[in-house]
């Protein structure tokens, strides 16, 4: 069963027909050819498919596209303006925060979304004082980015990149 939906992806508006079973991830990858969002597990267990959905970091593999009619999606590709990188992306390059690159676009989107959550004062599992302004320690960064698995084990570089992006 098909439905027509409207999505803005990396600044471009698309009207497309999707199967009601189509996930947002497959709508991006299979229908629109936007493969910046990766499929690592397809079940919300790895974070590779993370994008910014209406401004917040979000998994696209557990979202049915039809339910997000009218939404705005920004992928890691859209965070950059051509070869002009987002500061978070530049920080990943500076600190070698990746190896194979497959989880990387999701990591980048997750960092961007996470830093925004910190600005809004969101606490995390390791925050001692739930009511204080969060202090973005290394442990805070690690916890807040734990929804993005990296099998190459590039966490050390991702941490350093996030620290740089958070303070620049």
């Amino acid at each position, binding site marked *: 069963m098909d439905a027509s939906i409207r999505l803005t992806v990396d600044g471009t508006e698309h009207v497309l027909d999707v199967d009601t079973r189509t996930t947002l991830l497959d709508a991006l990858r299979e229908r629109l050819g936007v493969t910046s*969002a990766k499929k690592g597990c397809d079940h919300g267990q790895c974070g590779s498919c993370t994008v910014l959905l209406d401004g917040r970091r979000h998994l696209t593999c557990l979202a049915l596209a039809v339910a997000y009619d009218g939404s705005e999606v920004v992928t890691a590709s859209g965070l950059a303006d051509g070869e002009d990188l987002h500061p978070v992306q530049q920080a990943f390059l500076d600190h070698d925060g990746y*190896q194979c690159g497959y989880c990387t*676009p999701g990591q980048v989107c997750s960092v961007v979304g996470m830093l925004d959550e910190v600005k809004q004062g969101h606490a995390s599992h390791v925050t001692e004082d739930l009511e204080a302004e969060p202090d973005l320690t290394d442990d805070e960064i690690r916890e807040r980015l734990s929804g993005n*698995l*990296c099998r*190459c*084990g590039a966490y*050390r570089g991702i941490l350093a990149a996030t620290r740089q992006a958070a303070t620049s």
Partner: protein
Amino acid sequence: MTADPVQHTPTPIRVRSVGTRLERVDGLEKVTGRAGYAVEHGADDGFDGALVAWLVTSTVARGRVTSVDTAAAAAHDGVVAVLDHTSAPRLADTDDGELAILQDPQVHFRGQVVALVLAETAESAREAASLVEVSYDVEEHEAELTEEAATYRPDSVNPAFDTDSDTGDVDAALAEAAVVVDEEYRTPHEHNNPMEPHATTAVWRSDGDGEVLDLVDSTQAVHGVASTLAPMLGLEQDQVRVRAPYVGGGFGSKGQPHAHVVAAALAARHVSPRPVRLAVTRQQMFALTGYRTATISRMRLGADADGRLTAIEHRVFEQSSKVKEFAEQTAVPTRMLYAAPNRRTSHRLAMLDVAVPSWMRAPGEMPGVFAHEVAMDELAQACGLDPVELRLRNEPDVDPETGNPWNNRRLPECLHRGAERFGWAGRPAEARATLEGDWWVGTGMAAATYPAYRQGGNAARVTALDGGRYAVAIGAVDIGTGARTVLTQIAADALEVGTDAVDLEVGDTRLPSASVAGGSSGTASWGSTIVAAAQAFRERHGDDPGAGAEVLAEAADDPLGTDVAFHSFGAVFAEARVHRRTGEVRVPRLFGVYSVGRVVNPVTAHSQLVGGLVMGLSAALFEESWRDARFGHVVTQDLASYHVAAHADVRDVDAEWLEESDDAFSPMGARGIGEIGIVGTAAAVVNAAHHATGVRVRSLPVTADHFLGGR
């Protein structure tokens, strides 16, 4: 194409870029997600209008398919074809039991491919796959590894080591030993789980030039895929083109093609000339794409009162699949790690009705050194010796197995430097001595080793371009190791130009032949060949060649000979914390020092060594593929139930290396670094957890249960 390659013996290069930092040359593509992985290729690459292939896998562990009812699947909206063993194209060669799928009704393990669906969309393909009704004649299966069941003696162990070894008189030495450690160590089944699931895009074209199978595959060896598939499909190797521009990790599981690549090829042939995209699901990966077999190691160490080893015995019991043998070389590193006059090793397998095990990062060394290095910790404890000192006392002058001299064995320096940088000194001799807050704290260490390999069968091409630039081509694959970057550096130095004057091409069988990105052999094998080609190019064309000047070269036959022992070494130090009430285990510090020859690029090398440590940490604390023997398959078959280390688990993890150059091994002075980081790491963590708590864990993973009286 150039004519036959010239043979050239590479000589050591003058390093300029090699040894210095160079940002990954493919970084921009990766951080934007624009890098195209295996199923991310469309019309631009010749894959317009691809169908989606979905695998149907067996739900029994052993038996025969008696019927496949495809009616409901075929009738599903968008389905183009359903293939099973009666309808799939025939293979020309069915000798490989893992790869010869859809050719006969036999079911060898649960999760084997028994049918596949081709549909216009992924949604249709997935649903139709669930509608294929397969009936079976079920036979009784065996799927449990026990020591008693492991009686089969393989002819050799991976890749071609002797199955057993026996030197001196182990039993007599043990009988006389002042101190004996006699224990059993276990490692579980583990799955590589690269973040990019195994996937292939395929199109089978017939045109004036005959038939061509064109693949983009997530593989560690494009030429390996072509050479394996071609004879199975009745094609010449040059009729199979394989590209792997970007590969989302492999860790050995993409070192050889698995059944899904054959499935994609058969599907593409069936719907030729339409392309096909096949992505293995994360769950299917647990049956179809290889794994590290569980191991049981019976270790017996005998020593004199001063901790000098008199006997080392390592008997290994592990398993393989009845449909294809893979014998992990678990006891092989025990043959060379320490000196002892009396040594014995053996490998015995239980041949089971299970999925086919294969390579996973440091096969052999990872489980084998785990067993040996935990046993050494127990020996240190029994002798009242510092664990570092125990290793130093058992340092062999020559390779104990062959008597060959070491090329460059610097384990003692790794131990000393690691101990110093980690802050090993002053650690309490007794276990369970330090309680900080609610956490028992301890430190532990282990040695690491990995053989240095250089593979044959490589060729590289150097072509002069306009403006002083050079195209350098080799069919190597960058699976995230940084090969693209380090080979650019090696080529630049060999040609004596800047890295920005080198256009490196990799990842395509249309490029000169290359060996697998495996066995920590890539940089040395490919790099040596590029050096050979660059030096031959300069000899033939000089320093100011005209555009178009070209040389295709192979590194001359292995100059290493067999009379020197080439290995890398390392020392791993860990701090473990165990919660005194809940048993939770955390590793706040992990540090490795390595002797790996010259490091070509300190950025990518550091990431790879740390990545190996992280995978070792993950194996130490979390990883376990739990096979339910009743059904025959792994039931922890996703990333929520098969845990790999998450960001919060990885705290202060760092690696260093000794400054050195191994010019006898490669013209860059480099050995390999891909695997050694995982070796010894789990042992260091287990030893640290023992030091923290006094509880000796002898099976992985080291979960809380162990400290709460269970498991």
